[in-house]
């Protein structure tokens, strides 16, 4: 479930629910594409009750270095991103979230989120508020990024 990258105005109040990711080659579960060339905001995105046997990439990607990276002047605002009630069999990572030094990613929240088999590592850089509630990865409860 991807938002962007051409959203120079902004996207808010997105609700996606009861999803079965039947593809095994998805680049991400929820992906937000933006950078300082594209600009705009993504606020209040909610993806909930998700069943994903296999995701080909991370469950969540918010990467400001996407595409042209930090070469523009339109600093994106990404905040209040919620992944609720996710059951994932296998994924390369649970999250890959990278902001800018001068423009952090805002609030990101994972709740009741279980990833049984994580094949790679998580990345968390320059995020203001990263909340994990009831998150289990590889059978182990995880309370911070």
């Amino acid at each position: 479930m991807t938002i962007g990258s051409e959203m120079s105005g902004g996207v808010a109040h997105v609700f996606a629910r009861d999803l079965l990711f039947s593809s095994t080659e998805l680049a991400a579960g929820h992906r937000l594409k933006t950078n300082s060339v594209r600009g705009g905001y993504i606020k209040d995105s909610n993806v909930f009750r998700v069943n994903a046997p296999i995701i080909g990439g991370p469950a969540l990607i918010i990467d400001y270095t996407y595409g042209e990276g930090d070469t523009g002047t339109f600093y994106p605002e990404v905040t209040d991103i919620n992944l609720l009630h996710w059951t994932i069999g296998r994924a390369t990572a649970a999250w890959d979230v990278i902001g800018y030094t001068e423009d952090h990613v805002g609030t990101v929240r994972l709740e009741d989120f279980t990833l049984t088999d994580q094949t790679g590592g998580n990345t968390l850089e320059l995020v203001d508020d990263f909340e994990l509630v009831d998150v289990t990865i590889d059978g182990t409860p995880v309370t911070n990024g």
Partner: protein
Amino acid sequence: MPLGAATAAADAAASDNAAANAPTHDRFDHLDHAVRPPAAWFAGRGCGDQPGPRNLPQDRSADRILRETRRPRIPRRDFDVTEFGGVGDGVTDNTKAIADAITAASHHGGGRVVLPAGRRTRPAPTATAA
């Protein structure tokens, strides 16, 4: 969008997708993209409710959006640019005629701006009313 064009666009998108070689399931191609498929379409496709609590605040927000969203209704009214001074001779600058037709459509609550067949000149794009 005509059905053929929609299918071509979907095929183009699919060829860009790394998952294009994955087993293909039944597709939406034969359906009007503006219309939600009938409930029967989802039967047996593993779609539908997934595990987890229901009636979340997010469910209520989503339900409210569904209730309050209507497909746009565009009046069946045409605004012919030639009635606003447009000339299809390949020479005349029709910028003002087209802008005026769009403005008139907007003032009347919407409609269709029509450029009859012909050769037209319109030098520069301009901002237009919705």
